[in-house]
């Protein structure tokens, strides 16, 4: 084929442009670590990467939710443990006080201790979540203190009223999977989460039972203490133990979910990297090849361009 001077120049320019563009792309890939950056470079991989990124963002948030729930579950567990101590002591006092050999002075002393126990329990019932400042046992009406204590002139607790509700919030820990760690202070509805202090299904009513015990101690009604209060405290203890074991089971579940979320997050990272990441070894080898080709084109081009018939005629 007849090759003309202009065609030769044009072709050299095209070749150099193509090699420069190739080097530019490969250099971008090496510096960003990405095989592509725009949808037009690889539409399917772009969609895949964006979808995976959304999955990763959700996963990261689920991990955050799980951590929050675990913190709250631990706070609740600590309260439950303290309540359990109170409940156990109340049961002990009931057993001691039901003994007819005890004097009224002894019972008055017991009554004084029960009064403190009631105060402690009421204080624990109004515990706030350190992270959010919301009350732990108010159900979803968690903005105001859920338990209000009424006292008489002698500073005796005459009643503890529940101001919260029996609903609990659910929080998502994976797509479509929700968990609740909250326990409402009271649930008289017969459905939903068990109430911590009062629950119509188990018959638990910790504050009323404590107050009744306190009154029976002061009035010296050992019959009622032996017949009713001891049994009532057993019901409250059972209800408390149910909530403690429920809390433990939820924590175990959350820990499993946290491990799963962490693994899932790692595998999503790998998938994102596979979808959009550049293979460094391959990219750098290709960049070297492109550089070599560019140098060769420059050298051969400049040598050939210097030569023409003009070099040989005088």
């Amino acid at each position: 084929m007849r090759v003309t001077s202009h065609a030769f120049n044009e072709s050299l320019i095209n070749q150099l442009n193509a090699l420069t563009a190739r080097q530019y792309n490969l250099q971008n890939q090496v510096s960003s670590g990405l095989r592509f950056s725009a949808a037009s470079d690889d539409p399917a991989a772009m969609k895949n990467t964006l979808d995976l990124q959304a999955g990763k963002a959700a996963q990261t948030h689920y991990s955050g939710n799980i951590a929050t729930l675990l913190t709250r579950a631990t706070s609740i567990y600590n309260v439950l443990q303290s309540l359990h101590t109170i409940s156990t002591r109340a049961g002990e006092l009931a057993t001691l006080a039901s003994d007819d050999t005890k004097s009224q002075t002894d019972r008055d002393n017991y009554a004084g201790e029960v009064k403190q126990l009631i105060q402690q329990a009421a204080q624990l019932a109004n515990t706030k979540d350190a992270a959010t400042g919301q009350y732990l046992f108010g159900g979803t009406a968690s903005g105001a203190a859920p338990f209000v204590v009424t006292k008489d002139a002698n500073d005796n607790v005459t009643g503890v009223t529940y101001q919260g509700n029996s609903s609990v919030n659910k929080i998502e820990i994976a797509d479509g999977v929700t968990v609740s760690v909250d326990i409402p202070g009271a649930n008289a509805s017969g459905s939903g989460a068990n109430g911590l202090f009062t629950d119509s299904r188990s018959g638990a009513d910790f504050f009323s039972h404590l107050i009744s015990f306190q009154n029976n101690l002061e009035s010296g009604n050992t019959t009622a203490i032996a017949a009713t209060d001891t049994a009532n405290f057993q019901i409250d203890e059972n209800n408390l133990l149910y909530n403690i074991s429920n809390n433990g089971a939820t924590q175990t579940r959350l820990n499993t979910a946290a491990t799963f979320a962490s693994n899932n997050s790692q595998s999503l990272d790998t998938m994102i990297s596979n979808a959009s990441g550049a293979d460094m070894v391959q990219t750098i080898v290709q960049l070297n090849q492109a550089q070599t080709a560019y140098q060769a084109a420059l050298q051969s081009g400049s040598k050939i361009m210097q030569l023409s018939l003009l070099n040989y005629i005088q």
Partner: protein
Amino acid sequence: MAARSLQTQQTGVEVSGHNLANVNTAGYSRQRVDIQTSPFIPTSIGAEGTGANAVSIQQLISAGLNGQIQRQFSSGGYWEGQQSALQNTQNALNEFLNGGTSASSSTSTTSTTSTGLATQLSGLFTAFQSVATSPGSISARQALIGQAQSLATTFNQVGTQLNTQRTSLNSSITDDVGSANNLLASIASLNKQIADAEFRGGTANDLRDAREQVLGNLSKLSNITTSTGVNGSVDVNIGGQSLVSGYKVMDTLQTYDAGGGNLLVQTATGGVPLTLTGGSMQGTIDARDGTLATLQNSINTLAATLITQVNAIHSPGFGLNGTTGADFFSGTDAASMSVNQSLVDNPSLIQASGSATASGDNSVALSLAQLASASQSALNNQTFGNSYTQTVADLGNALYDANNQVANQTAVAKMLSTQRSSVSGVNLDEEMTNLMSYQQAYAASAELVKTVNQMLQTLLALKN
């Protein structure tokens, strides 16, 4: 005879010089002087030669190849029009990946982030999650407002950018129409100049080259059909309408609003809408009415569905103070989307609770967060995120296709240009060789003049 010979060789030198001067001129076709033996003089001893004459200067061209190049220009222009429009559209959408490099061993482990709506969308749903986790937290609510505003602003920007893109494609069509009208006028004028120049015989080579260039430029704008008219003129038709006939521009092009501000092309005087089949004008029109229109529609549907769905869940909910009935988003499409100002002013009004009396309830916030994985019938049963990424991929595919087509067309153009150049291009070595041979022939002819002169002197000396 000697003088004629000198003149003939000089013409050869001039033509070679002309070729050499135009070695880098785009569209130039090399010329050759056609030298023929002069008529002989019959004598008693036989025909006596009278030297040589330069009878014509001819272009070396391949008419078929020129036609092919024109058609190729037309389809190349079409895809370049599409490519440019779609590239700008992709920029307007602003969905790109950023990588923080950490080139370790074989594969890079990158912290890939994206720049556009995808991140903002998932950000909104995680912000709803945060409120669901801590419904009473004002800071979580403020973060949600910030994220929602950021999403709305990104939607606004994308919506506005895409509208601007439509406007700029319309002005690009208007510009192309203006250029096409100028080129039509040039063709008519060149037809006249060529006819005038060739009136006395010969071929107006350089003018024909210029006309070929103009026809090529017009083909880049639109698919044209040409036919040879009177006196070597070229008649031009676009979309079946005669626009140049002989020396006259029969009609020009103009844009018209085909509804919704979408400009199309028609003839100016006749008012006949033209169906263009190639060239950058049609490429731009197709990109505007095809990919860009679909993209705008998808983004607006996405924004509208998001606004409707979020409001439908948010509106019956209750704020921290028991307020209800407020929308979360206002607006109806991407460009008009915004966050309800009263919520911006007071985030405690965000209606995250499902109960008027339970401010700590999170059921509404949870439902809003769960919208992330809910498929929407308005979005072809895809989730918000998937619908958007599909939109990005669709645009990517269209541009990917246009890029490939442009690459293919460029390869074809390069091949045709090389072919054309091998017929019509100037080769320096070749022209130098020709120049030297004409120069030597000129010197020889001059020697003939000298010899005749010496002979004449010898003859005149006999008188003394």
